[in-house]
Every structure is written in C-alpha cells, then in structure tokens.
C-alpha cells in the first residue's frame, strides 16, 4: 500500500529554519535525512500504483535515488527496461534523459513505438573503468507522463567518441 503521509510529515518537520538553512547539529541533520528517506519509500509505492493505474500496465517500478551520481541498478543491469518520465509542469517539456548503462548499444522507442535518437557517452571518472551513460531526448506532456522502452542491442560500443584528455603542466 502506498502512502504519502510520511513524506509530507517529514517535509513539515523540515520547515524548521535550522533544516532550511543547515544550521542544525550534525546528528539532527542526519535525523532530518533519515526522516526524508523513510518518507520516500511508501511514497514511491504510491506513485507506482498511480502509474500502473494510469498506464494500465503493471510493472516493477524502480526509483533510482542515486541517479545524480550515475548509479541505477535497473538501467545498468537490465537488457530491456522502460523509462517513465512524469512532468509536474503545466506545459509540455522537452528534456534529455541520462541513465548509467553497461557498455553497448541501445535502441530507444517512444510512446508511439517510434525509434528515438540516442547516444552512449563515456563518462571520464576517477575510477579506472569508464562509465557509460545512455542519453536520449524525451518529450512529456503537461502534467502528464511518457513511457519509453530501451533495449540493449549489442555488447560493444561503437558510438562513444574518444576522449581528448591532455594532462596540463601548471604554468
């Protein structure tokens, strides 16, 4: 069962000026973060239920909470997956979706089953192994959502460009 109340309550607690301005003790800051994280879970179930009902499609929805640091198990491990993008703004929005993926080529289709141009880019990172990210444009209606399907078509990546990295000697 989904429930948005825990997240709402956590957000209410975080209206405190210390939470807003970051002037709380470290352990209080940790507690704020813990309340927020505890609120995400049931809210994600709620959103999954809503998406299933609205899309007439029951799926094992997954929210990648660490997308900003290129971590998303579903897109990194699955050969096939769907990407549903919800747009809370009252007008159509065009955006670039960026997802961490394994090496390879991918085929992306839009809600009308048409193929969408996509790229796999290499992300230079401090780790020795390169990271890859799948990039494709989405168009989402006002206060609505669009679902795109992604299929891995090959293990090798011939789209990625070579990196130009020139070590600099400080002047």
């Amino acid at each position, binding site marked *: 069962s989904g429930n948005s109340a825990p997240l709402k309550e956590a957000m209410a607690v975080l209206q405190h000026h210390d939470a807003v301005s970051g002037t709380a003790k470290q352990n209080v800051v940790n507690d704020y973060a813990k309340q927020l994280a505890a609120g995400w879970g049931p809210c994600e179930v709620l959103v999954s239920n809503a998406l299933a009902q609205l899309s007439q499609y029951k799926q094992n929805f997954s929210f*990648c909470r660490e997308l900003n640091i290129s971590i998303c198990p579903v897109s990194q491990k699955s050969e096939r997956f*769907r990407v549903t993008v919800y747009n809370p703004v009252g007008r159509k929005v065009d955006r670039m979706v960026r997802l961490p993926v394994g090496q390879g080529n991918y085929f992306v289709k839009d809600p009308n089953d048409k193929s969408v*141009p996509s790229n796999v880019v290499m992300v230079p990172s401090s780790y020795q192994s390169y990271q890859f990210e799948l990039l*494709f*444009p989405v168009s989402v209606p006002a206060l609505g959502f669009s679902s795109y399907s992604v299929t891995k078509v090959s293990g090798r990546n011939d789209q990625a460009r070579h990196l130009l990295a020139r070590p600099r000697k400080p002047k």
Partner: protein
Amino acid sequence: SRVLVIENKYIRATFDSDTGLLMKIENMEENILLEVSQGFFWYNASVGDGKSSQASGAYIFRPGARKPRPVSRWAQISLVKTDLVQEVHQNFSAWCSQVIRLYKGQRHLELEWTVGPIPVEDDWGKEVISRFDTPLKTKGEFFTDSNGREILKRRGDYRPTWTLNQTEPVAGNYYPVNTRIYIMDGQMQLTVLTDRSQGGSSLQDGSLELMVHRRLLVDDQRGVGEALLETNTGDKVRGRHLVVVSSVRGAAARHRLLAEQEVLAPQVVLAPGSGSPYRSQ
C-alpha cells in the same frame, strides 16, 4: 588548436585549451558574445580577528580576507562530443571538478559542479565559491530572487531603507539566491540559475559568485554549539548551475521558464523488462 569549442545551433562556448577554463559564450540566436571566465575559489574562514571575535560558522559567514584564493588556475580537461551532447570535463583538483555541458537544442549551458570533501588538514576552514567574471559594466548592481518569485535589485555596500555602515565587505554583500542571480549592463545579461538555495553576490564590477560548499572548524557561538564540520572525511556535494547569456529584453522569458523546470523537474521512474496489462478492477 589553442581554443576548444562546444556548440549547438543556439549556443557556442569557447575554452582556452591551455588553461582549460571557459573563455566566452556566444548566443547565436541573438548574435550576442560575452567573454566569461569561470572558476572555483575559496574564502579562508575567519576564526575571529582584531576587528571582531566573530568566527565564520553555521549561522555566520565571515571570511578572513576580502579576496578568495583560486582552487586552481587551470583545469585538466576531457572532451566528449556526440550528436546529442557536447561536454567539457574539467578537473581543478582532487576535490573540485565540473562538467560544462551543452545538449542538442538547449539554449543554456549546464555547469555540473562536484566539490568536496574539502581538505582542512591545513587547519583552515574553507568556503568554496564558483565565480563568473565578465567585462560587463554593472555599476555594482546585481539581482537575486526571493523565493523564486520577486526579483530584488542589490547594490554593493548599500541598503535601500537605512544607511549602512559596511563592516564586512564580503559577507555584508552576500544575499540568498533561491533560484537565480544575474548581472546586466543594460544591453546584455548573464543569468545563473541554481538547483538549490545558495548564497551569492557580485563583489566586483561584471562579476558574480555563488557559494557551493563550506567546511568550517570553529563554532560561531551563535547557538548551534558545534563547527560546520561534517564527520569522517566530509561531504562531497554535486549540483548544477544553468548559465544563460542573452539580451536584457529576452532574459526574463528564458530564466522564468527554466527556473520553473528546475524546481518542478521531470521525475524518472524505471521498470525492468516488460510489464503486464493492468486493470484497477
């Protein structure tokens, strides 16, 4: 070549391939070119001095010196170019890097900065800023938003309703930036949108800066009872600044729509494999 360029049909960003730093931004739609140098600097946080015992801390921003120090004067760069995106990856130091990104069809530059953990082995607390320097004649004026709604004009060392005796030339000119800050010279405007509330200012003519991270060693005695010092190695923070160079006349339409899209960003939900038809009945 001596210069490095990333571009789409609207925007062209040029980098100095020697230093790796941004050099200029061109808005080809409005035929506008602005020299912009951008880099990261840090203020050495005051622990109290002869003028005042007030230290910089969770509640109080009080740098020990007027001029910040550069994290680095150059950056190691990597270039990624595909049909949908062109990006320059800049590595300033072990704890400060940035990706300057231009997607196909996008009318703004996206600067994704990653700062931290801030080293404090030298026993100096540090307050890190991203600063944009341009030749714009701004006469000490800049603009910040208030809660994403009203835009307020700010002027250096000045308060509109009372006579200010400025004692803190840096902190006394810092204001909250909830969604955007901009400078203009009447013709051209440089607007920087943020993805979170930050402190910001314009302390030199044609310049604007935003504070992206802080790590402090002393309690400012204002009530929190501890220094702004994360436990263990400290926090690594990642965020985005969206940079728009435009005419003053065309700026508002751009940054209003962009700010709205930032605060109400699309949510991405994934699902492995395929699903099965579902009826609520």
